């Protein structure tokens, strides 16, 4: 057994596999299929200061090797989370992270402050990259100045590990990552979904209620991998890589490209046991290639 432990800021994880926000519910939904405490970290649903109903349906469209979603951050709000959900999940023997979203800087800060008070939540993932909401969301993640402003504000209010989730819908993601690093983030995670669209030709109408939605799944992997590589070269803080990871080989590719940990999203829908399989598969890879620790392959892509 190789050493799979990895660190993101002050966060120590038993293995580099986390679940991507919005694709794994609160973890409980998967506990009939796997022992969720064996996952390195569970990032729960996008949580906002107030209750959000999300977008009207249809919210999903299948695409070649992927899917579009337009959920739009449906959640019952941070207070409901603290009162009703946190007590149920807090003693899971793994890292539980909250994905924090908002429409204004004040929203982000207020939500982060409330989460900061929860002993069993060691880190948040700040979502400045949701393409499915009208206000805020992705807008914060598509310019250096706005990314910087929201991250610095949250940084002041939140002392534990702060991971900032970046949007791929930008010209230069490394630039945004640098701004976020300068603003005090402990880590960046990428990518959130890519803005896409589906049309029903027979009906001459968009498939999604919101016309556009966020693309995820195997199809985005080449783009995600490129961005993780670009960002890992640019910043000094640890990078969490995700986007289209479907199996252990994909996960190893992200680690080689420079990710210190990875997240699995859409693949959970196709195989609810995939997180465990990927953690095991990373171990197999390390053993087969004679590496003692996952840290021995992080960023070890040879490009010369």
């Amino acid at each position: 057994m190789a050493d799979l432990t990895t660190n993101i800021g002050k966060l120590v994880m038993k293995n580099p596999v986390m679940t991507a926000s919005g694709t794994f519910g609160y973890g409980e939904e998967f506990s009939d299929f796997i022992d969720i405490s064996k996952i390195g970290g569970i990032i729960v649903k996008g949580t906002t200061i107030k209750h959000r109903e999300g977008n009207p349906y249809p919210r999903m469209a299948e695409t070649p090797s992927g899917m579009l979603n337009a959920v739009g951050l449906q959640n019952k709000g941070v207070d409901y989370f603290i009162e009703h959900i946190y007590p149920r999940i807090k003693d899971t023997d793994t890292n539980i992270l909250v994905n924090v979203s908002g429409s204004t800087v004040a929203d982000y800060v207020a939500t982060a402050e409330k989460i900061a008070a929860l002993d069993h939540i060691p880190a948040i993932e700040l979502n400045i990259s949701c393409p499915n909401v009208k206000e805020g969301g992705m807008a914060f993640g598509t310019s250096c100045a706005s990314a910087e402003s929201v991250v610095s504000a949250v940084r002041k209010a939140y002392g534990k590990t702060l991971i900032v989730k970046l949007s791929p819908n930008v010209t230069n993601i490394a630039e945004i990552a640098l701004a976020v690093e300068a603003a005090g983030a402990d880590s960046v995670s990428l990518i959130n979904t890519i803005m896409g669209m589906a049309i029903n030709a027979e009906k001459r109408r968009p498939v999604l209620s919101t016309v556009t939605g966020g693309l995820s799944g195997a199809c985005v992997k080449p783009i995600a991998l490129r961005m993780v590589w670009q960002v890992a070269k640019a910043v000094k803080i640890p990078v969490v890589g995700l986007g289209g990871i479907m199996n252990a080989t994909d996960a190893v590719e992200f680690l080689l490209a420079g990710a210190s940990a990875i997240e699995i999203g859409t693949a959970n829908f196709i195989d609810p046991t995939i997180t465990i399989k990927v953690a095991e598969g990373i171990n197999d890879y390390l053993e087969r290639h004679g590496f003692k620790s996952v840290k021995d392959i992080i960023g070890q892509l040879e490009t010369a």
Partner: protein
Amino acid sequence: MRKYLLDLTVSSNEKLSGNYILMKLTSEEKLPEMLPGQFAEVRVDGSPSTFLRRPISIHYVDRNTNELWFLIQLVGDGTRKLADLKKGDLLNVMLPLGNSFSMPTTEQKELLLVGGGVGTAPMLMLGSVLKNLGFEPTFLLGARSKKDLLQLDKFEAYGNVFVTTEDATYGEKGFVTNHSILKQKKFDKIYTCGPTPMMKAVAAYASKNGIECEVSLENTMACGIGACLCCVTDTKEGHKCVCSDGPVFNIKDLKWQI
């Protein structure tokens, strides 16, 4: 209820009239408990255009032969690929998913089960369960045409079957809500599954006549277990997931304009 991820073995896969298949699946282990109205998320292998699993209702569970039945309409690449499966092939399924039709209360004696098209699928399992509990359910099944009427003989084992076809090739002509049985008999509870316009018409009939009514909804699904929030429907308590809060809803909880 505990959910399982299983590789089931195809014991038969029969092409029915029209564009439907009846697939029977078995396992070395005893099949898990399943309730009428629940469904499975089926992984379709070898279909390049099918990325996600496909939701398919529990059509029937034969506890004697340890077989699970699916009744499937071939509408796209995924379902067509399922039609290629042969005896002995494996099919990966997550099940049982979702809630179920609720059992009648002590006052509810006359039960009407209305199915339209492939929406008749869950009605067979429901009918068999109700019959086992001592009820004599009435089935009202609607289809485009005679060839789209599925499993009639099976339904007849559990209750009286009434039929409408749109082209008058079998039973009464028209839609289920036009059938004369609705005028002849008074029902205490209606269960329905089928195309949305049909279910809305049935719901309208039920609500006009003060009859309790449960509908089984469809929606586009990604996870099937309440994790992704892709499959919501409007209810009086806001968005609810069809996959985990449903697929069965009582019409009094929905925001249907009926």
